[in-house]
């Protein structure tokens, strides 16, 4: 058993690993076809939640997988169980992820009833052929319907979209942006497709059966998306996240700002006072471990100072606000080490750096990883 370090984390992540079908691009900890396990998983998750400090929490995020895949009863039991144990701060944000293929008015109503005030819906694409390519269980009409239901149920709604799909045209991307506008979304997560290790796409890619876009096309699409979203009044507050001012996802901001966060559920990661714990990824193993009274820890990392500094750079550069230079200083990464590199990068137009603020320029955003690597220690 790992003794959790003292921390009054204000953020809580809860993981539901089940999906109706496994999407071929997805490397999240999710599996399909385990409906039989739902009840015991909810039991285990609530057991773990019951051991957590009661809060108050400013943000809660139920992610997946697809939390809304749970049947109404199980979902209700889960939400009520969470509410029974933890306290929410006055101005809390409670997000739940949903998949249009397992969304209905009843479930959304249950979410709202128990205090969820934000839904993040996996729309992914707005052309049915792209949805099929992505192996999604729903079509565009279902996504539209689910969005409408979500907006009726909770005050804040976000959509996830994947761009940079093989063969995606500029006009298709324009339609994607227009979709966000039409639905007057206050928030959207727009990701460039990544071929993640361990996914079916990755296997197909390695066999040469999946073509990915070349850098130039990707860059063009990213720029088109970024400017299109800006025109809708959605600010790029993080690499792949766009929001009306004030509508940012506060939970995710906590990650990027290196705040402590609690977690429960299989594969869920908590980071408390520099100790990062990943739980058993496999739901069955997780359930068994929790049932046996254990903490289901699969990996515990004590982050070193260098790692914390690296993360400060990596996460900070994702944000429009940029790297927290004071935090960096406090972590011991003196500006002498990186100042010269920063000046060169600024001269190349890749970052904005004026001594007090260091953030990527739009040019730099497209090559974020290379810039991060240049600035990171090591």
């Amino acid at each position, binding site marked *: 058993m790992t003794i959790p370090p003292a921390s009054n984390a204000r953020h809580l992540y809860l993981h539901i690993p089940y999906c109706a079908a496994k999407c071929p691009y997805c490397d999240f900890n999710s599996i399909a076809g385990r409906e039989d396990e739902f009840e015991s998983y909810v039991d285990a998750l609530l057991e773990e939640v019951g051991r957590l400090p009661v809060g108050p929490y400013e943000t809660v995020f139920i992610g997946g997988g697809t939390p809304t895949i749970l049947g109404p009863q199980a979902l209700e039991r889960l939400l009520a169980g969470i509410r029974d144990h933890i306290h929410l701060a006055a101005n809390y944000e409670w997000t739940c992820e949903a998949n249009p293929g397992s969304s209905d008015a009843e479930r959304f109503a249950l979410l709202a009833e128990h205090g969820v005030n934000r839904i993040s819906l996996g729309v992914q694409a707005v052309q049915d052929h792209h949805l099929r390519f992505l192996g999604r269980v729903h079509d565009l009409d279902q996504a539209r319907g689910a969005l409408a239901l979500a907006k009726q149920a909770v005050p804040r709604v976000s959509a996830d979209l994947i761009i940079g799909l093989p063969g995606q045209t500029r006009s298709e991307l324009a339609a994607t942006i227009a979709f966000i506008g039409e639905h007057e979304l206050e928030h959207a997560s727009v*990701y460039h497709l990544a071929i993640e290790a361990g996914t079916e796409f990755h296997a197909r890619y390695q066999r040469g059966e999946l073509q990915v876009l070349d850098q130039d096309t990707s860059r063009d699409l990213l720029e088109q998306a970024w400017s299109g979203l800006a025109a809708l009044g959605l600010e790029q507050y993080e690499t792949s996240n766009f929001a009306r001012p004030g509508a940012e996802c506060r939970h995710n901001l906590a990650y990027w700002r290196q705040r402590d966060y609690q977690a429960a559920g299989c594969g869920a990661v908590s*980071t408390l006072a520099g100790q990062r714990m990943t739980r058993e990824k496999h739901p069955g193993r997780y359930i068994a471990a929790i049932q046996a009274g254990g903490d289901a820890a699969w990996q515990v*990392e004590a982050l070193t100072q260098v790692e914390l500094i*690296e993360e400060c750079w990596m996460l900070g550069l994702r944000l429009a606000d940029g790297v927290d230079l004071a935090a960096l200083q406090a972590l011991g990464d003196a500006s002498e080490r990186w100042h010269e590199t920063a000046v060169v990068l600024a001269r190349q137009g890749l970052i904005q750096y004026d001594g007090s603020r260091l953030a990527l320029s739009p040019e730099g955003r497209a090559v974020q990883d290379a810039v991060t690597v240049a600035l*990171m220690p090591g």
Partner: protein
Amino acid sequence: MPYPLEKIRNFCIIAHIDHGKSTLADRLLQATGTVTDREMQDQLLDDMDLERERGITIKARAVSLRYKHSDGEIYQLNLIDTPGHVDFTYEVQRSLQACEGALLLVDAAQGVEAQTMANFLLAIDQNLEIVPVLNKIDLPAAMPDKVAAEVEESLGLSGESCIRASAKMGIGISDILGAIVDSVPAPKGNADEPLQALIFDAVYDDYRGIIVYFRVINGAIKRGDSIRLLRSQRSYEVTEVGRLTPKMNAEKAGLAAGEVGYFIAAIKNLSDVKVGDTITLDKNRGTPLPGFRELKPMVFAGLYPSGETTFDELREAVEKLQINDASFTFEPESGGALGHGFRCGYLGMLHLEICQERLEREFDLDLVTTAPNVPYQITTRGGEDVMITTPAEVPPEGFDQIREPVVELNVMIPSAFVGPVMQLATERRGEFKHQDYLGPERCVLTYHMPMAEVVYDLFDKLKSATSGYGTMDYDLNGFRESDLVKVDILVHHNPCEALAFICHRSVAERRGRAIVKNLREEIPRHLFEVALQAAIGAKVIARESVKAMRKDVTAKCYGGDVSRKRKLLEKQKKGKKRMKMIGSVEVPQAAFMAVLKANDE
């Protein structure tokens, strides 16, 4: 009592690669009970892993077979293994010199090939009795009659005398053994004369030290003798003499004229034991045997530590390698972006590849090799003659004359391919000498060609120009003056010595263009556009650029992803650090071979 000469036969097997030499050697060992079936390991004579993988016998060895002939007598048959690649011609010659006869093994499906021919000519030079054997007659594609006719026509041996065999199936093995006794002459020589023994190989063994393989021509040698190596002028006391059966089998009585075996003495440096040298007794000296030549490396390349490997580790490894392989040479050099390393010399490209693999495998090193080059002779502005082994040694002020090594090249091809091969030879600055027919369908083309055009990839080119049928063989013919230039490669305006090369003026532009193009593929995109140029002096002859990076973004990074994404960036950073810096440009190791690949275009 010395072993009676008339009961000894010394022979070798000469063949083109893959014609079945190793398989036949195994059969002979089995058939004579030299090794039992149980002891039989495949390809016993090739005992280095690397050789086994490549199917090439690199180091000549010998083995004594006890054979009971049909006349009821027991004979000592000494089989001397010969290396089978053009890089090792000299060593082949010395092995042949230790024999009176050779089994000329020809694949009955493939026919006479370049190495068959080349080795045959070497064997004739040594006055060996040739016993032709057609192997692989079990193959459905075998055409023994046709190949026998070819042997008769091209080599002037009687087609009828060809023994038809299958080493694989064990067919014809007793005929071969019989023919060795009947056709190969017994060694001449006199055990009472002063010792004269020929070194045909030497190896370093971790347990036994240096083991020398030799053939006694005259006289006798035994344990305790104080011997002298005539060429290297060193004396040693013999601590063990014996036969190879194939294990080392010490022989108290020693070995006498006609016999083949090994000796061990407290020899420290393999480089003191030169193949072709003559062993004699310190007190009662014989005269040196003919044929000795000092082996000179003909291909040079820079070798640099990379990644985790340090210069000291590399130095230790090359020193150890030289203990095993006296033809490998090295000298420290500094390679700019590559740091400190060595300029290494090899007999040829195969030798280079073998050495590199051994360094990487046996010593577990991470290495960068620069493009290989041949040595050049330069007459400086001051009228002095110098030999250079790297383009970096070309005097910046230029030179009065530059000379390059030229080889005599024999290409053996089906006559239908004469056209494309002549074209290839012309492209490679070959000077046509003559064409000889080996029967109606095959011929040999002989050229004088700059070695630089031959060593790197001519063999591959020949193969593709002849649908795989062409074979070749070459030998050094001297140095010739030529219009050669040094081409510099500039990476973002910084010249990189490790990429510079020497070539004929007529191809400088094409090669330069090919190299910068290859570099463009090898150098990853940077945050800025990277300029690549090839130049002769101040004149730029080719240019390319690596476009600036356009996209490199990790799309998702949430609470559960942080460690993994951080590790990916750490890996990316590490990868960058492994690269070599030329100015502000990170150049991967593979790019240093771009010069070599550019020959392909």
